[in-house]
C-alpha cells in the first residue's frame, strides 16, 4: 500500500531535509539543527530515526557509503526530496509574504493595534 504523501512538513522534518542537502550522518544532523536554530529546535534520537526511515522509504533521501554504525550512516536528499523541500520552502515564503503584506497594509491604515 502506498504511503500517504506528505502535504506539509513539520518543523523537524523541514530542518532535517535542510540538513540533508549535503551528505551527512544522523548525529551531525542533530548538531546542525541545534546550532542553526540556537537550540530552539532539537531533534530527538527516536524522532530522527523515524524520520530518516520514513523519508528513505518514501524516496526523499538515500543512504550513501557502506557505514554500518547506525548513527554514522550518511544520507543525502534525492531529486524528489529536493522538490519536496523546495515546494515547502515556497509555501512558507508565500505564507510569510502574505502575512507581511497584510500586516504592512493594516499598519499603514492605522487599523493594527501594536
Amino acid at each position, binding site marked *: 500500500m502506498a504511503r500517504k504523501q506528505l502535504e506539509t512538513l513539520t518543523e523537524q522534518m523541514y530542518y532535517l531535509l535542510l540538513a540533508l542537502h549535503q551528505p551527512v550522518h544522523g548525529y551531525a544532523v542533530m548538531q546542525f539543527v541545534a546550532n542553526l536554530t540556537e537550540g530552539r529546535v*532539537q531533534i530527538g534520537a527516536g*524522532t530522527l530515526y523515524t524520520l530518516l526511515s520514513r523519508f528513505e522509504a518514501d524516496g526523499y533521501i538515500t543512504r550513501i557509503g557502506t557505514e554500518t554504525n547506525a548513527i*554514522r550512516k550518511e544520507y543525502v536528499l534525492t531529486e524528489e526530496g529536493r522538490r519536496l523541500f523546495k515546494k515547502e520552502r515556497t509555501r512558507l515564503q508565500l505564507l510569510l509574504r502574505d502575512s507581511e503584506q497584510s500586516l504592512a497594509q493594516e499598519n499603514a491604515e492605522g487599523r493594527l493595534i501594536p
Partner: protein
Amino acid sequence: MSNETVRTKRLFFPFLPLDYKAAEQWLNQRAQQGYELCSISESRIAKFKRADTPRRYAVVLWITSTAQSLRPYEDVEFNKYHEFVTSCGWTYAAQLGNMHIFASPPGETIPLESDPTTEAARANAYGRNRLITGFILLGACILLGLLLMGGDMFSFMALSMNYMLLIMLLVAIMSVILLFRILQLALYNRRLSKAEKEFFWPPVHTVRSAYWRGAIVYGAGVLVVVLMFVCIIADSIISHGSYASVQAAFTTLIPLSVTFTRWTGLFRGRNKWMQLIIPACIMALFLVYALTSMEEKPIKESRLAGQPVFSSATSAAQRESQYNRLTVQRSPLYTYVEYYEDLDETKGVTYSYYVKSCTQALSDRVYNELSDTFRVYYNIEPRMQEIIFPGVDRVQARGDGQGTSILVMQKGLVCVRMDFRLSDVSISDPALQQILVQTFFS
C-alpha cells in the same frame, strides 16, 4: 529512615500502554526525586536506585507483529530503532509489554521523541492494532459462546454439571472485558484524533488518574485469574477420584507456570522465548499422561462402580409414584444420574448418566455393547451411528412412545447416537436399565 538514605526502592507500576505518556511523566517525576529506574518485572514492580544526576525517561509504544511477538528480539525494525537511539547515548532501561522504556544519558535535555507527528502516528498504529485485535477476539468469544450454546441436547442442568459452565462463564467474562477494552480503545483513538486536530499533543491523562485506572484493570485481571484457579482447584477437591485431581492440577499448572515465569522474569533477555518451554513441557506431559492413562480409568474409578444405581431408597419410593424422578449427584461435575419417568408415557422418559471422560475405544465399546443388547433383548438393529468426539461424559436414553434414542455425549455434544424406530423398546424396562448400569458403572 528518611528518604535521603534510601538507596533502592520498589514501586508499583500499573500503567496501561495507552497511558504511556503518563507513565513517562511518572518515571520522570521519580527521576527528579533522584531515583533511577533499574528494572520493571512482569508483576509490575519497578525497582529504583538513588542517582546523583537525573536521567530523562522516554516510553516508546512499539507494536511488534504477532508472528514476532514470541521472539521480540527478532523484530528487525525495533532492533534498528534500538541501535540508533542507543548510539545516541540513550540506554534501554526496561520493557513491559509494548512499552519500551529508554533512559537518556545523565543531564540530557533533548527528549527521545521530539516530533509529535511521528509519535502520534505510532500511538495511532497501536490504538488501531489493539482495536482490531479486540474486535477479532470478541468475535471469536461470541462465536465460541454460540457454538457452546448450540450444542446438541444442551440443558442448564447439563451445563451446571460440566466444565462447559466454567468455560462459558469465562467466555462471558472475557467478552465483557473485551467490550470494555474496545470501548476504552475507541475513546482513546477519538482522543488521539482530537488532540491532533487541536495541536494538543500528547493527550495525557493526569498521572494520578492513569495510575489508578491501571491499578484497577490490573487488579481485575489478577482477580479473574485467581477465580479461575480457585474454580479448577475447588472442582478437583469436590470431585472424587485421583484422576480428576491430577487432571485439574495439570490444567492449573499450565497457566500457573506461564504466569510464574513471566512474573518472576525468569529467562528474561535474549532467551525470552524460553518462557514458553516450561508451559510447553507441562502441556506435553499432560498430553502424554492423558493419552496413556485415560483408557477406561474413569469408569473404574467411578464411585458408582458396582453399585446398583436404582436400588436406593429414594428411587424405590419415587418409582412407585406416577411421576418419578431420581437424581444422584455424587459430584457437581463428574457423576450425575438423572432418572425421570412418566408412567402414562405422555411426556416421555429420560435417563441421564454422567461419567468421566473416556477414549475412542470406550465409546466404540459403548456402541457395540448397546447394539448387542438391543439385538439380544429386542431383536432390532440401530439405524444410525454417529461418532463426533472420542470422549464420553454423559449417556442419555430417551423414549417418547414413538421410538428410542441412546445418546452418548461429551461436553454436550453427541459422541455416539443410536435411534430405534420401534416403540416396543421400553426405556423403563428394568433389563435395559440393568444393561445401562452394567455398561457404564461396573
